[in-house]
């Protein structure tokens, strides 16, 4: 009886989501009075064993196959499935990321086992002998679901950012176990075949200031004053789905359930009503300022600060005031 953490990495670089998973796996194993082990996939991740051991894993399984040089959802899922068959852990935890969900879904499908994605909590009384009750997020975080995983091996992903990574050494050094996984033709296609590296820079997801516009902005051109304000604050422009649906801005600017989740120091929402699917993308913001003609708009009642008025005059007035103070 063990808890197995599946380490997500990119060409040997561990992701921050994995560190949360390692921490959660250790905590769950402690509660179950059992060991926590980890799995790295591909020889290029062998060097992560030390990092993983620093989180308290007693064994690090290294899945090897010459095909495992880069990410491939099917090959990674099949590798997890083979390791799971071999060591029969009672719980398998993956990352709550695009790759993590894909790996666990692939493994679950191959093992014909249930899987619960984006778990926020695990039953505090779980000791390994009973079904596992979890709380997971639905509707992109607008709702929570308590559900029961009734299977000999429980596969889950941990929602990102819910567990703070914390190192804790195991009492003895981790055992390394190399597992040669068998991969064939059937998983050979879905590997990254080509890649264009991202240029570093401030993105919607990381910018400390986001000035966002909704249907109330009215047109693509009318975003110019929002661009200007964002520029003055060294921020970026975001938008609602009403805006992307109208073709006013690219989907890369969309905040929300099917867009980007943001957590800036301040989110300035102009002409956005605050539908729940938008709100879930913005609610982690440290401060929210709503600019809206409707004092009853959902975003106004939920925001920390609001200005009631027409964004077409309020936004330029804010930029003018900033420039006035800058020039003083």
């Amino acid at each position, binding site marked *: 009886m063990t808890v197995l953490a599946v380490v997500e990495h*990119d060409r040997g670089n561990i*992701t921050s989501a994995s560190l949360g998973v390692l921490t959660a796996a250790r905590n769950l194993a402690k509660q179950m009075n059992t060991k926590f082990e980890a799995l790295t996939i591909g020889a290029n991740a062998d060097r992560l064993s030390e990092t993983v051991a620093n989180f308290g894993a007693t064994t690090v399984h290294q899945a090897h196959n010459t095909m495992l040089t880069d*990410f491939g959802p*099917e090959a990674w899922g099949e590798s997890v499935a083979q390791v799971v068959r071999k060591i029969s852990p009672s719980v398998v935890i993956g990352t709550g990321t695009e790759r993590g*969900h*894909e790996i666990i*879904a*692939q493994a679950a*499908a*191959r093992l*014909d086992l*249930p*899987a*619960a*994605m*984006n778990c926020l909590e695990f039953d505090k009384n779980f000791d390994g002998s009973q079904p596992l009750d979890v709380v997971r*997020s639905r509707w992109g*975080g607008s*709702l*929570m*679901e*308590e*559900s*029961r*995983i*009734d299977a000999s091996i429980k596969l889950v992903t941990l929602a990102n950012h819910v567990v703070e990574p914390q190192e804790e050494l195991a009492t003895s050094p981790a055992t390394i176990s190399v597992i040669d996984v068998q991969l064939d033709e*059937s998983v050979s*296609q*879905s590997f*990254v*075949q080509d890649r*264009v590296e*991202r240029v570093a820079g401030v993105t919607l997801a990381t910018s400390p200031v986001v000035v966002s516009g909704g249907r109330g902005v009215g047109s693509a051109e009318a975003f110019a004053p929002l661009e200007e304000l964002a520029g003055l*604050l060294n*921020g970026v422009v975001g938008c609602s789905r009403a805006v992307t*649906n109208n073709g006013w801005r*690219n989907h890369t600017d*969309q905040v929300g*359930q*099917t*867009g980007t989740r943001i957590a800036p120091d*301040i989110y300035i929402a102009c002409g956005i*009503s605050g*539908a*729940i699917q938008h709100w879930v993308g913005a609610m982690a913001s440290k401060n929210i*300022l*709503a600019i809206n003609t409707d004092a009853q708009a*959902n975003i*106004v009642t*939920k925001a920390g*600060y*609001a*200005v009631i*008025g*027409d964004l077409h*005059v309020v936004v*330029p*007035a*804010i930029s003018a*005031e900033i420039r006035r103070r800058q020039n003083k």
Partner: protein
Amino acid sequence: MNVLVCVKRVPAPGARINITSDGQQVDTAFLGFTVSPHEECAVEQAVQLIEKHGGDVTVLTLGPAEAEEQLRTAVSTGATKAVLVPIDATDWDPQKTAHAIAKVIGELEATNGKYDLVLFGNESADSCGYQVGVRSALKLGRPIVNGAKGLEIDNGVAVIRRESDAGVEIYRLKMPACVGIKEGINLPRYPTMKGRLASKKVAVDRSEASGENGGLKLITLRRPPERASNTVILGNGPDAASAVVDLLEELGVFK
């Protein structure tokens, strides 16, 4: 080429999501219904592909009889065929859903020939299970990649572009293949007049659903704790600008 797209009927909540008193469902008393934005984009992508290469787009849903509405909406935006897999419950667990979907696709293919592509949304809007597509693809014995922000056909190969933290990744899957589509891949069109007429006329085929319960069972839904807020109104109209900039200074975002 022939493309099949799987869509799921879900409620379209506004400012908040209410739950029925038994905790088992979203209270849909005053709500309209829709499909996930990812699935809208999957339909649009399929329609663009047949506009270029010829063929049919079949939309399929497993859901209540009312889900016919979502199938007809898809037809109004360019899908050509519709299949309803009726179930009594509002939702089936992911294993059971995938079993039923794969089985129906197999039956459809036995008469119509293989679909070159079977498209899914990256995740459904309501349950966000991230797995029905993967499970269905595996049962169909086809490769699948999720998160597609680009999908083109090159000589019998589906070329998939997706974004990761590291950059833009390209996958190449020999068809028949499955793909999980993400919003942003395209801008879905609005229904045309011609499409609206077609959607009224289209025959919605019915296929029988079957499957055993899987191992994930809903106990109850609940709303996350709401963050209390006493909104500070900084002012009305442009006169509020000074108070706004004071706030920005106080928060340290403007010096």
